[in-house]
């Protein structure tokens, strides 16, 4: 996809990709900071996450403007058009991930200002959070490398996060039944767990766009059946 008559066009597309990944890096750092703020009560980290929010929003608007400009100026077709369509969608997902990180940071502040009874209970949710961060990082790597195989693998990983989310909820329910004083904290934690679960979903979406860019097939809302990753029949 890098052989256009106009070198300028290539540069524009490349710059677009780099910008998306820069925004991705920012969002990645945001999510990581939010989860750390939650797990070790570092409230200055939470403040940083909240501050980054405006930069992420600026990125979203800028990239969207660039996309529409390229469409108008170059009237791209085939892969280029798919890339630009996928970029506009990826940016939306990234911005939503930023919002979720913001939400986690806010809840973390609330929980830690209230004073936590037992931070050991959070081990489980921190693990889920790390898995989501990892998934987001891999999704962006797949986007940078346009690696379809990796993208397919990551899509299947999302299930693991969903399962962990359910087990976190179950655990929180038992805590709430044991001791009603923990209910308000547990409710806040449910918000965090839900945000983490959503981050996993958005990362999955990004992987689907990668497949769309490279293969031109839309795998959204389909039961994932990848002929490439199925073992060969003997």
């Amino acid at each position: 996809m890098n052989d256009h008559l106009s070198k300028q066009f290539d540069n524009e597309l490349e710059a677009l990709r780099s910008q998306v990944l820069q925004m991705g890096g920012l969002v990645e750092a945001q999510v990581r900071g939010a989860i750390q703020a939650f797990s070790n009560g570092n409230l200055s980290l939470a403040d940083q996450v909240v501050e980054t929010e405006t930069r992420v929003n600026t990125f979203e608007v800028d990239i969207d403007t660039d996309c529409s400009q390229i469409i108008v100026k170059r009237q791209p077709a085939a892969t280029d058009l798919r890339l630009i369509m996928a970029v506009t969608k990826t940016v939306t997902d990234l911005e939503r991930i930023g919002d979720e990180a913001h939400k986690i940071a806010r809840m973390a502040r609330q929980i830690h200002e209230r004073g936590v009874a037992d931070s050991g209970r959070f081990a489980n949710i921190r693990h889920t959070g790390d898995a989501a961060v990892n998934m987001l990082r891999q999704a962006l790597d797949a986007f940078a490398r346009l690696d379809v195989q990796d993208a397919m693998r990551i899509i299947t990983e999302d299930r693991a996060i969903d399962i962990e989310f359910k087990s976190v909820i179950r655990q929180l329910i038992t805590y709430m039944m044991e001791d009603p004083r923990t209910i308000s904290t547990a409710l806040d934690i449910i918000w965090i767990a839900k945000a983490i679960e959503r981050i996993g979903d958005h990362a999955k979406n990004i992987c689907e766009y990668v497949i769309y860019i490279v293969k031109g097939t839309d795998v959204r809302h389909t039961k994932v059946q990848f002929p490439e990753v199925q073992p060969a029949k003997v």
Partner: protein
Amino acid sequence: MTATYLQHFGLLAIAAAIAACVGYFVGPHWGWALFCASVLSLLVYQLRQLGLLLHWVTEKSNAPVPESSGIWDDIFARLYRRNRDQIRTRGRFARLLARSLQAGRALPYGVAVLDKDWRIVWCNDAAESHFSISLSTDRGQVITNLVRQPEFLGYVNAGNYAETLELSTPRADGLVLAIQMVPFVEEHHLLLSRDVTETQKLTIMRRDFVANVSHELRTPLTVMVGFLETVRDLKLDPARSRDYLNLMSEQGHRMQSIIDDLLTLSSLESAPPPHSEEIVDIAALLAQVRNEAEQLSAGRHRVSLVADTSHDLAGNTSEITSAFANLANNAVRYTPENGEIGIRWSAGPAGATFSVTDNGPGIEAEHIPRLTERFYRVDRSRSRETGGTGLGLAIVKHALARHQATLEIESEIGKGSRFTARFPANRLVAKPEQIVAVAGS
């Protein structure tokens, strides 16, 4: 060269002379004909040699030199020599290049060559693992697309490469890198990365240590000063003031034991490793450890000792005693009343193990790797009441390390913990004449 020219002119001159003679004696036509024939044959000869040359240069570079004579032999020889020299030089350069690439790959520091648009041109193995990239798939990829930390992007864009950047990577092992960009030929840049995880951990540990020592010493000191002022300023009845004095001396002892432990630690760190000639009488040592633990427990726990004393240990008695006693005393301190504490010693061809098992509350997994740090507390409020100095496990770890032994900690919340010291087999000395199994309750 002039000689070969002269040779050719000579040949032509001879041919012309013979042709002139023939022309004079036989007739001018014959003379011209002979001259033409000899010039033609010379031309044919030269063309043939040219053909040979063409054939030779289109062959592989190691084809044999064609047989020739005269000026052509000279030319072939010179060409051959130049060709051979070039092949040799090329080989030398290729070897040099391969060696430098190998040296670059083998460097313990990460090195990546980036072009003016920050695309990856080349990188070595360390850089691949530092940045989780792979040269075979990521060549030509813009580095900031893959290393996406905002700090890194800021560093690259700021252009102030005199400073290094400390970058924590998203890798699972929490790798921390020191990164520096170095301008390189043709607007290229070298990206250097160095693993500073350990250094950073050490810096944090040292900072924590100083803060902790001050804190640990200040707490008893504050109590003492407070009582001193009370005793000085208020008129107290003798019984009350005796109580206060007792409390003060308790705090004094506490400070003393912290300083004793610190001195033990520093002597463990600075003294040369113990001689292996000294033999530790394990049976006596274990009995002593158990007695101490029972005294500390004062009947609140059941302490059992199971030992296979068929072997003795080579090492320093006082260091081993302090390591074992610290493990046993810890178990007593942190296990609630009526708990059970098992001390076990076993020795065999694979080495020896000393273990202390308790059925106390257990330790959460996240604390276990940090337990041997100085003054590390799992629960700050509780540990000090139990009388520990916070240095016990640090002493154990150092004393064991000086005997090439390792400390393993297993624990399960609510079930209890097991601390195991493993000694290598070469530290064991067999005691064949008496095999005694001591079992106590």
